[in-house]
Each structure stands twice: as C-alpha cells, then as structure tokens.
C-alpha cells in the first residue's frame, strides 16, 4: 500500500491521538500531523468526523477513520506487511481486543476523575484506577510486552496513559510506581522504542496542560 496521503488530525496531550501516532510510527508511515484547537475545531475536522467532532481522525487518501482503536486496527490491516500489531490467531486477537476495550472503559474515565475531583469521589477513583492497573499487571505477567515478545496492540493502547501518570500522581497525591512497579517497568521498556518516544509528550508538559484545563473548567 503506497503511503499516498496520510493526515492525522490530533491534539498533542490526547492519549487517543498518541495511540495512532505510535501505530503510524511502528509501520514507518510518513504522514502530515495537524494540531487541532479543540476550542476552535477546524472545518476539516468537522467535515471528517461530523458524528463525534473529536480527534484523532486518520485521513487516508481523503477518507477518514475516526476512533483511536478503529484507526489503529485500520493501520494494522492496511499496512499489514510490517510490524503486525494484532496477533493472527483468532483467540489471541479476541483477548487483545478485550483488554483494549477494558483500557477504554476504565483508565481514561478513572484518570479523569483523579484530576477533576476531590474527597471521596477522588479516593474511589484512585482505588479503582489502581485495581485496574493491577489487573493489567497480572495480564502482563512475566512477558516483556502485552503482545508477548514483541510490542503489540494492547501495548499501543495502554502506553499513552504513561505520559499522564505524573499528572495523576500529583493531583491524586499517590505513587503509581509504588502500587504497580511491574507496569512502570513495562512502560519504561516501551518508552525505549522510538515509535513511543516520538509519540508521547513530556509528562511535565501534560501536567501543565491539566493545570490549565482545571483553571479553564473552574475546577480547584
């Protein structure tokens, strides 16, 4: 498949956008990165994702693919000759999709509660967040990656949140490494890969972004 024209509509702190950046980098795909201002969405974004009006949107030869997991799967299928992200075995594929869905259902929503709330609500979110991470740690086991010997779909789906851990820790006043040391080891291992290194923003920048966001939303 020729790398005719690939455009990514994205927003630098978005973990969902990071997933697509990583997948594109893993496949060695050249693309044009377009930063969106979510307070002032571009005509292109509204045209390419009229249903949700959200980033990331991958545009391949003018045709849009929205929703990060769908975009990552699309990239894996359209550029299937290099760095496969999903396993070919149906059962292992189903497992990988299950855990990606788990990350979507839990990590983002709970993480948001950690920085956006206080008191009991925050404590409950922290507890469930750690439980969810521990569950994933258990799933990782002794493997270097969720994909086994090589970096794969679940790794791509989860690792972007590593860039948000510092912000969660500061606002939540807790240490993720203390609770999930193996997961942090895994995250650091992933971060050594160029595709991840180039796709994740600096965690202090993310923290600064969350501070600004809290101010704008009027959250203490």
């Amino acid at each position, binding site marked *: 498949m020729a790398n005719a024209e690939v455009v990514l509509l994205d927003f630098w702190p978005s973990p969902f956008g990071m997933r697509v950046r990583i997948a594109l980098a893993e496949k060695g795909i050249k693309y044009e990165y377009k930063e969106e201002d979510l307070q002032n969405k571009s005509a292109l974004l509204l045209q390419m994702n009229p249903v949700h009006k959200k980033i990331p949107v991958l545009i391949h030869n003018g045709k849009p*693919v929205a929703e990060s997991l769908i975009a990552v799967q699309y990239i894996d299928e359209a550029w299937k000759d290099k760095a496969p992200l999903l396993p070919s075995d149906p*059962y292992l594929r189903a497992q990988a999709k299950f855990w990606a869905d788990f990350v979507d259902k839990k990590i983002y929503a709970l993480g948001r509660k950690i920085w956006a709330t206080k008191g009991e609500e925050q404590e409950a979110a922290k507890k469930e967040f750690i439980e969810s991470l521990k569950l994933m740690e258990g799933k990782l086991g002794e493997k270097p990656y969720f994909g086994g010997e090589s970096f794969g779909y679940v790794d791509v789906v989860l690792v972007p949140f590593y860039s948000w851990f510092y912000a969660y820790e500061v606002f939540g006043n807790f240490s993720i490494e203390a609770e999930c040391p193996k997961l942090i080891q895994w995250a650091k291992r992933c971060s050594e890969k160029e595709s991840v290194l180039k796709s994740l923003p600096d965690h202090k920048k993310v923290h600064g972004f969350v501070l600004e966001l809290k101010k704008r939303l009027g959250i203490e």
Partner: protein
Amino acid sequence: MAEADQLLLLDLLPSPFAARVRIALAEKGLNYESREEDLSNKSPLLLKMNPVHKQIPVLIHNGRPICESMVIVQYIDQVWNHKSPLLPSDPYRRAHARFWADYIDKKIYPIGRMLWASKGEVKEASKKDLIECFKILEGELGDKPYFGGESFGYIDLALIPFYSFFYTFETLGNFSVVVEFPKLMDWAQRCLLKESVSKSLCDQRNVYEAVLEIRKKLGAE
C-alpha cells in the same frame, strides 16, 4: 479446528448484546448450547469465565471464554470464515463497519436505558438524544437495503437487537418509530425476514416486561 467444536453461550434472552451473538452463531449455522443466566444470581461459571466484568454474553469455545459482544462477533466471523462473512474484507469498509457498531454501542443502549430508567427532565432529554441518534442512523442507512450495502452485515447485526426495545422506547418515550423513522422500520422488517434474526430476537413485549421489572426495582415507577 476440532471436529466436535464445543460452543456454550452464557446468555440472557432480553439482552441486545447476547442477541448479537445469537444472530452471529445462527448466520454461521453453528450448533451451540445456550445457558440462561440470572443476573441477580450469577453462576459460578459466569464469574469464572468473565471475572473482569461478570457480564453476559460470554461465548465459551472449547472451554475458552470470549467476552464483549462485538469482540465475540468478530471472533466468530474470523474462525468460521467459510460462510456468511459479517465484516467486509476491505480495510476501509471494515473500519467504517466498526465505527458504526461503536456508535451504536456508545449511544443506543446507554441513552435508551436512561430513557426507560428515569423520569421527568432526564427522561425527556434522553428521548431527545435517542431520536437524534435514530436520525443519524437513518441518514447513514440512506437508500441502502442494509447498513453494509446489499447484504446483512456487521452494523446491521450490531443494531437489529434494539428492535426488541422499540415497543419499550415508544411506550415509555411516547413516540412512534414507524412514524418518525419509516426507513429504519423498513430496514428492521427486512432484517427480520432472515431466520437468523427472527429466531434470535427477544419478543418486544417480553423486553417491555423485563424493563418494567427493572424500573420497579429502581423506583422509577
């Protein structure tokens, strides 16, 4: 693949998610055992096979569990790829199918549930949202016989179980699907002509009864 494939579905008749799996299994002509779960008294098998979410449906294939309805459907489609493909083969069309199944997941059940589980302003707002979703879905369907084009596919399968909820939405939401969304109704009737669908869907009245029970428990009556 072993000659004697063992398929067990941890099931729930009124669940639209379980219905999706029933339809997929029927489309592929597969024999399976269906075990009805009581969600107020979940079986040890369910808790063992889906320890993370403790939800149905769970498909157990030769002893190994697969959870989450659309993950199960994709699994069935991949393993039994000899007939009735549910997803298209082209990557872009596959992405398109997944997008709309995801839209249905994010919107129809949660908003629908909000409509039938609440009262007053919340209920009115949910009704407005649900109607908006049906408008968008009708727009996506356009003049095609099915969402996937000429044949019944992934998106159709993802949505058609909610036909069982139309009576519930209409009665509790006070609107008519056939009046507001004639194209969607046409599409639903077309799908119901397929045996795999008609045999898999829960009767609309039974769903309504189940919903009334839940409303009672939630104190929404």
